[in-house]
């Protein structure tokens, strides 16, 4: 075992560090910026500027084909880039879905002429993409979605509603999965498209989140016309295409959000219990130790994944553990930190509150981590079924035409 970079990796790491030092501010000692309110116009501008800088320097789309501005680098270099970038303050939140999920799906299914048109602008951050999957009737059970598309000559006409679409209000394009045949079982009647978010008939309405932000949206479709040439995959094969998107989601291994355990240690050094620093309290110490063990466990699991990647293996469903562990850990650390603060923990004020209100902010945003991109329960199902080989859930909708599947009131 060793943790050393190969000469090629070391050279790349140095190159990345050189780039980041020249163009971004190191995190150490910088006050964290809380995004309680989501991305405002300034935030969007910062994201766009950073993405262009990154792409022009050749650090965006590292693993992508050269013809689209990528480097065809091995995934390990992407991991190295991410590790290094993590030490710097860079604007986030606008491109993760587009570059992490939408464009990779395009690259797997879209025609060359479309790739030539869309990939480079996406990579430079000139065009923003969103993922129109979830619906009121189809979240975890995505294939229960109801938005319809009907053929009309060389076009398709889309009617229905998507929901929870992150960044739809800032997006130029989207990938969408819709029902084209309700008379067959649910997975068989779906078809996949990409579309222009400025198409007539699309109405995007931001949703007010419990954290106060408005970053996800309802998206209504009224007779929205999409040319058949924007179909990805065959008619009725939409589920398969969706799985490609969801697989790339799994590869985007979620790094821990703050507050991390070190933030809790720092906090419990400042706060006092029984007149002594809280970090000397036995109960506090045990919690810190447990979270530290979990954090480190994830870090070294990532190292094992990197090792597998560098041997040319593809990470599988076992990667689900990252988000599963991180999401609850963040929520629990946030809540525990506030418990240690006591009544002062109620106050959300950058200047008055400990750690620039990081714990308060995380208390209100962390519930979303346990739902988005596969809920805790779905991830446990995936581990149980795909890693441990346990039987799938018994389904009440199996083999039944979609339009005869029982539905609830919500």
């Amino acid at each position, binding site marked *: *075992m*060793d*943790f*050393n*970079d190969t000469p090629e*990796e070391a050279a790349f790491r140095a190159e990345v560090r050189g780039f980041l030092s020249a163009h971004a501010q190191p995190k150490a000692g910088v006050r964290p910026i809380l995004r309680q309110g989501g991305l405002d116009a300034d935030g969007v501008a910062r994201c766009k500027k950073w993405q262009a800088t990154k792409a022009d320097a050749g650090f965006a789309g590292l693993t992508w084909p050269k013809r689209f501005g990528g480097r065809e680098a091995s995934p*390990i270099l992407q991991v190295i880039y991410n590790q290094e970038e993590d030490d710097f303050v860079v604007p986030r939140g606008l491109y993760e879905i587009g570059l992490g999920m939408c464009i990779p799906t395009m690259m797997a299914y879209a025609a060359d002429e479309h790739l030539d048109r869309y990939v480079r602008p996406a990579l430079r951050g000139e065009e923003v993409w969103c993922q129109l999957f979830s619906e009121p009737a189809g979240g975890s059970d995505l294939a229960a979605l109801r938005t319809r598309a009907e053929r009309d000559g060389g076009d398709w006409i889309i009617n229905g509603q998507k929901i929870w679409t992150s960044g739809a209000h800032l997006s130029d394009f989207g990938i969408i999965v819709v029902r084209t045949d309700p008379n067959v079982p649910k997975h068989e009647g779906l078809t996949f498209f990409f579309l222009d978010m400025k198409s007539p008939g699309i109405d995007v309405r931001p949703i007010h989140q419990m954290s106060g932000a408005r970053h996800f949206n309802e998206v209504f479709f009224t007779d929205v016309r999409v040319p058949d040439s924007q179909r990805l995959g065959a008619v009725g094969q939409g589920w398969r295409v969706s799985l490609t998107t969801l697989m790339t989601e799994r590869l985007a291994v979620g790094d821990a959000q703050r507050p991390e355990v*070190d933030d809790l*240690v*720092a906090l419990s*050094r400042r706060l006092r219990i029984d007149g002594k620093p809280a*970090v000397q309290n*036995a109960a506090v*110490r*045990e919690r*810190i*130790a*447990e979270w*530290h*063990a*979990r954090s*480190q*466990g*994830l*870090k*070294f*699991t990532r*190292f*094992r994944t*990197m*090792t*597998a990647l*560098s041997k040319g293996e593809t990470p599988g469903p*076992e990667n689900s*553990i990252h988000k*599963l*562990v991180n999401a609850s850990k963040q929520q629990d650390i946030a809540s525990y930190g506030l418990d240690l603060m006591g009544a002062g923990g109620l106050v959300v004020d950058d200047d008055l509150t400990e750690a620039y209100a990081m714990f308060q902010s995380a208390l209100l945003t962390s519930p979303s981590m346990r739902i988005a991109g596969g809920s805790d*329960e779905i*991830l*446990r*199902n995936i*581990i*149980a*079924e795909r*890693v*441990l*080989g*346990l*039987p*799938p*859930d*018994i389904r009440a909708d199996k083999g039944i035409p979609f339009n005869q599947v029982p539905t609830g009131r919500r």
Partner: protein
Amino acid sequence: MNFDFSDDLKQLRDQARRFLSEQCTPAVVRRSLDGQEVFAADLWREIGGMGWIGAAIPESYGGAGLGYEGLCVLAEEIGRAVAPVPFGSTAYLAAEAILTAGSDAQRREWLPKLADGSVIGCFALWEGNGNPEPVAIHARCVGGLLKGSKWPVADGGIAGVAVIVARDESGQPGLFLADLAGVRRRDLRTLDPTRNHARLDFDATPVEKLGGGWGAVQRVLDRAAILFAFEQVGGAEACLTMARDYALDRYAFGRPIGSFQAIKHKLADMYVALELARSNAYYGAWALGADATDLPLAAATARVSATEAFELASKENIQTHGGIGFTWAVDCHLFYRRSKQLALGIGSAPFWKHRLVDLLETRNAA
């Protein structure tokens, strides 16, 4: 980055797994459980003959010189098989203590015999309840003669040599070495009869001093914690496999119990705990091999993680089995017992959690 065991070591692990699945069957473990034999002496001889005990002992002292990563992969298999042999006491504790704190003469005298299994080692730390802390040590050596009682001492009833934690004439705690011939000892009944435990009463027993004070004791414990973690990981994985297999075969309400989410999610949680523990243990293996400066923190982390994983997996394995899991005849309790034996053997979870935070604070202060 290469954060995995080498192909050679994976091969060693596979061989060990195969060997133990044939030679250390539950029937063998149960001979110790039922008191027919104190430990699996035949198995022990074979293990010694294959060089496992001395895996990390340099060849110049009669070991196999496979390095610590080799000992780690073997520890995992010993844990998976719930092997009723004094492997940990001899290899992770006694031999390690002599290797790290003994003089060259002491190493030459004892390590070859420990490595081939002809002498069993033990680590006499405890004096009843408590944590591995200086205040808990009362045994004292005056003029080369040791007085005091040590219990429970894992494998103390079958060992030929003991490394003992005691105070010297000036009251400083440290490590001593004693030939156990003639020492009064008595086997103790414990939660885990598949491992011998004894009380040793030293009454002016001649001992030799090993080097170092409490620092040496802690160093031995830190290093052993990583090897214990591998045993715990092996045990936890065995429980998860056992529970998974049972959940696939056992039907209730017309379907495999493994199709109920309460069972699926329980097993998924066992898997998560196991993977985190495994990753932390791997880092420990690296730290052992490299004698890294952050070995103590790596050890405490691996230990906390592995204790959690094995305790969870062994109790939820019983739960997954239902009534039959509570019987003497089914093997679930072998793991449940062993998980507590390993959890308590070198300081329990709360002790290691506190140590972990101490180390974290020292690191952050630096």
